[in-house]
């Protein structure tokens, strides 16, 4: 399995080594080892309740590994101290399942907050950048709306604008298509590919939606709920044709074998 174009030898954007995730005594997944290459659209897939979202929470430092380590580039994220971790996490953007916009702030304030915290821009400049980011996700003119005033799909896109506020190197998406109609989900997929192509960002997507997995995924890992570990890794379309494990094939073919 070769994730990078030939000739390019880069350190992976994220490297997961021997990760075990657990809630107390309950082990959710064990022995996860995989690399996420730069510029990849990396899909974390698997059935409901297998720990996809929890893996994402580990990757962005919201949960601590029970064992194993996560590297950003060649630097350990798991062992970094709080201050260093804060710096590392600033290069990362996250789109949460429900958008997770700050409900007491307008869209422009949502997008502008990280800019205000981590750049020296003046308030009018921040507003300008925020408006630009909102325009990029098709929300020009919605700067002064509150999250509760707009639809679920728009909230997700606004969440994406906020995730992109600081031009992150790595973008995480938690179930981007969940709760969206097929066309909006498709548009969001297109947006994700567009972002990767134009910003050169690395993208990590947690999803179980087959259409998106095949449309955008350039690499993937499959988590299994029964055996509680990863049972496949590779380009989704390759896995569709010749995954060794029957469960992976069944998943990718909606139960038909």
């Amino acid at each position, binding site marked *: 399995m070769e994730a990078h174009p030939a000739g390019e030898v880069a350190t992976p954007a994220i490297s997961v080594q021997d990760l075990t995730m657990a809630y107390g005594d309950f082990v959710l997944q064990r022995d996860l080892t995989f690399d996420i290459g730069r510029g990849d659209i990396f899909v974390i897939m698997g059935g409901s309740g297998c720990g996809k979202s929890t893996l994402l929470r580990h990757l*962005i430092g919201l949960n601590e590994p029970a064992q194993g380590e996560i590297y950003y580039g060649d630097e350990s994220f798991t062992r970094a101290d709080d201050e260093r971790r*804060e710096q590392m996490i600033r290069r990362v953007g996250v789109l949460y399942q429900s958008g*997770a916009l700050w*409900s007491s702030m307008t869209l422009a304030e949502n997008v502008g907050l990280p800019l205000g*915290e981590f750049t020296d821009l003046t308030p009018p400049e921040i507003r300008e950048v925020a408006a630009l980011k909102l325009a990029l996700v098709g929300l020009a003119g919605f700067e002064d709306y509150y999250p509760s005033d707009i639809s679920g799909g728009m909230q997700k896109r606004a969440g994406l604008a*906020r995730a992109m506020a600081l031009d992150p190197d790595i973008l995480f998406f938690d179930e981007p298509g969940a709760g969206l109609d097929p066309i909006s989900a498709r548009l969001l997929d297109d947006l994700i590919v567009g972002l990767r192509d134009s910003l050169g960002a690395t993208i990590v997507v947690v999803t179980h939606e087959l259409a998106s997995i095949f449309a955008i995924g350039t690499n993937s890992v499959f988590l299994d709920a029964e055996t509680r570990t990863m049972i496949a890794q590779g380009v989704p379309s390759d896995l569709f044709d010749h995954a060794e494990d029957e469960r992976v094939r069944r998943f990718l073919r909606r139960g038909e074998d």
Partner: protein
Amino acid sequence: MWRLEEGLPSTELVEREFGADPPRRIGFDAEGLGTWDSGILTFLVGVSRMGREGGVVVDPSGLPDGLQRLLALAEAVPEKEDARSAEGDRRLIALLGERTLHTHYLFWSDIEFVGQVTLAFGRALRGKARFRGTDLALLIQQNGFDALPIVTLVTFLLGLILAFVGAVQLQTFGATIYVADLVGVAMVRDMGALITGIIMAGRSGAAFAAQLGSMKVTQETDAMTTMAISPLEFLVLPRIMALCLMMPFLTLYGDVMGILGGAFVGMTVLDLSAVEYFQQTAAAVSLQDLVGGIFKGSVYGVLVALAGCLRGMQSGKSSSAVGDAATSAVVTGIVAIIVACGMFAFLFYALGL
């Protein structure tokens, strides 16, 4: 007619058949079956289970197609052995142990939270903490000025009640003018701060817990953490600051309203003149009492804000957990205030204040 409204059909009749001489096979005659719903299905599943346990073949072929399919569906996936939680047969000792561990965990996480808030305050004093001034201003309005009507009502009535309680006793000595002393000293030294604190526990403490709790549910706090914005600095600090700043004013205001309540009784029921009443009050209440009372009020404010934010940040990720967090915030806040009030009483007495 087999419908849920009629109650669940009992399997008792079939059970009796099983008694001494069990049949080898059970079939069904559904000729006369009219309308049915899941009522009959529960009956069939029961019969089928009895059949399995008693080694009797249950033949569903006499049933209508739909029922046969539903029955097959209900029994298609065998019950997972560990699906039911072990709650049922848990022993008392184990339960006690678990509770103790949980309480122990909560205790340490409470202590940790207070420590983190203290550190965040340290950063704020050095000007390094991040939160928005506009948030603080809004919180000051919500937890200061907006609380005035309720504080007015409650403290005024409290002063009035204290005056009546005192009046009944003092009238027997013909010393009703001392009602002014009683109300004044009681309000300014303790009751003003105490009752304002309790109002704020119900008002602000619950609001803080609900706000922070629901932000956890919608992952808004996670979104802050992954943007390297500390929820502790951004959400908790301004809330504690707002109450810390507003409580002295609210306490002072409550004191004045309580004295007015007492004066109202003095003037209308006890035939005292306003000048007389206020002169008596001014003579009875020292500046020291006033400052002491306001100091207590500020401490209660910090306790209420801490309890509200703590329970909000500890909240689980469901709507019922947010409700629990709000309840717990009010309870914690009020208990903390009463305990602090008791300790102040001892302390001030020992110091001769």
